[in-house]
């Protein structure tokens, strides 16, 4: 049974990854699963300088989902390299670092700094954050700006470069194609969908930040549709995510066009979810008499 997947230069032993921001820096979940069994571990998004994030309340549960407005709180790249990366080097699971910036220059500097470290196998660019050079509009909602920032980072790193796409756009396949043209090795999607929840008694937003990102099973059909649309427009691998909590969900993403899958909110519901999904995928392909997982990708029959 061949479960391996290639994402750029990274060879994953299986397709099950963690989604950035839901798995901390790995050690938070080491008591629940064997990190070595993961296909790849994607750590919490990092910026050059530490960020304190948004004021609380930062999360609110919604039907089959949750809204979060953490505000990209992180310890900064230097502290990650000194305090968190050494711990992750002990595992034989590829480490992918999610990162972001508020200008093209900051993205490039962050990518350079991360690329010089030993033990990082790939970079995932979060482009769903505000751009200070364009009136704080979101990088990943404008194809020209997306092209500029991705191609600049491409020149700054030899590591496998994954671009994490924002679903808050009219045509996600266009954004995926733009990332591919700019030199990305893979795309991951979807990031959270912008949402809002209101307390009807106090008439106040439930999140201090007013708006937040929706994740969890509630977003899965949107994510599957977007993966399917991107798969038809690009040649680079897709990492599918958005509400995966079972192996069936993961297989659905693969049929839509994903080569690998990432689990996010599912980790909160069940800290052992990644292992459950992995064993479920094995059972599925064995029951379906499939030799290689690659035979699933994009095989939805429309």
């Amino acid at each position, binding site marked *: 049974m061949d479960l391996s997947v290639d994402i750029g230069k990274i060879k994953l032993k299986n397709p099950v990854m963690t989604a950035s921001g839901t798995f901390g820096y790995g050690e*938070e979940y080491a008591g629940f699963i064997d990190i070595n069994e993961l296909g790849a571990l994607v750590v919490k998004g990092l910026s050059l300088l530490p960020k304190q994030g948004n004021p609380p309340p930062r999360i609110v*549960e919604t039907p089959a989902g949750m809204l979060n407005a953490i505000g990209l709180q992180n310890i900064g790249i230097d502290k990650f390299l000194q305090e968190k990366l050494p711990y992750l080097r002990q595992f034989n699971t590829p480490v992918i670092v999610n990162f972001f910036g508020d200008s093209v220059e900051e993205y490039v500097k962050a990518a350079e700094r991360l690329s010089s470290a030993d033990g990082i196998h790939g970079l995932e660019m979060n482009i769903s954050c505000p751009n200070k050079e364009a009136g704080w509009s979101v990088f990943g909602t404008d194809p020209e700006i997306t092209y500029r920032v991705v191609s600049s980072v491409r020149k700054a790193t030899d590591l496998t470069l994954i671009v994490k796409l924002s679903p808050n756009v009219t045509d996600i396949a266009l954004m995926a194609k733009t990332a591919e043209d700019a030199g990305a090795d893979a795309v991951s999607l979807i990031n959270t969908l912008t949402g809002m929840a209101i307390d009807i008694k106090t008439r106040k937003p439930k999140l201090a930040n007013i708006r937040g990102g929706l994740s969890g099973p509630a977003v899965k059909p949107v994510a599957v549709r977007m993966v399917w649309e991107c798969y038809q427009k690009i040649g680079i691998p897709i990492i599918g995510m958005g509400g995966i909590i079972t192996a069936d969900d993961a297989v659905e993403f693969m049929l839509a066009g994903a080569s690998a899958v990432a689990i996010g909110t599912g980790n909160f*519901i*069940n800290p052992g979810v990644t292992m459950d999904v992995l064993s479920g995928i094995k059972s599925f392909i064995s029951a379906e008499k499939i030799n290689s997982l690659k035979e699933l990708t994009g095989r939805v029959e429309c």
Partner: protein
Amino acid sequence: MLSVDSRLDPLLKRPFSLHRFVSGDLQFLYKVVGKATSILKEKKTGDIMELIGPLGNGFPLNQAGKVKPVLVAGGMGIAPLVALAEKVAKQEPFFFYGARSADELLCLDELDSIGIAPVVSTDDGTAGRKGFVTELVDEFLTKRHSSDLYSIYACGPKPMLAALSGVAKKHKVKAYMALEESMACGVGACLGCVIKTVDGYKRVCKEGPVFSFDDIMW
């Protein structure tokens, strides 16, 4: 973090304090306030639920010295304090307990069985003193001379804990407060349950839920 069942709504586990551990049984004390606790109420003996824990820290105890524990519960904040009272019973703790009304005063029998008679206040005056429990604590400490011989351990609604912090500051008494926040992961990964402290945001699930009163920016 307790998962009441496997349905998708409510989606997330719920944080509960450990109430008591009696003859091999772990006890939780909860009030029905929403979806998850309504499901919990329907559970029967033999039903299986998943939980992860214990998580986070606990109350820092000083059982060696002469320091007298002063326990302060507000409403459902009684939940983690009964076991604490039991643990420090030999130090003859003082216990203050405030609730909205007499019928919301819980665990009085349990406290009695460990030899503790709480000083009670209610918002509506149906039991004990009419008013806030923090006023009782303030009066208690005012009558004492050397406040460094007392240490406050509290759990309750945030406004009560904020007021109690003021009382602790005024009397120069150490105070430790167990906080409650909405949580998603419970293990320090999601950064959803943070509270503002003098050292920036801290996770209630990981660095807490117990904080020293002077660490919190109320």
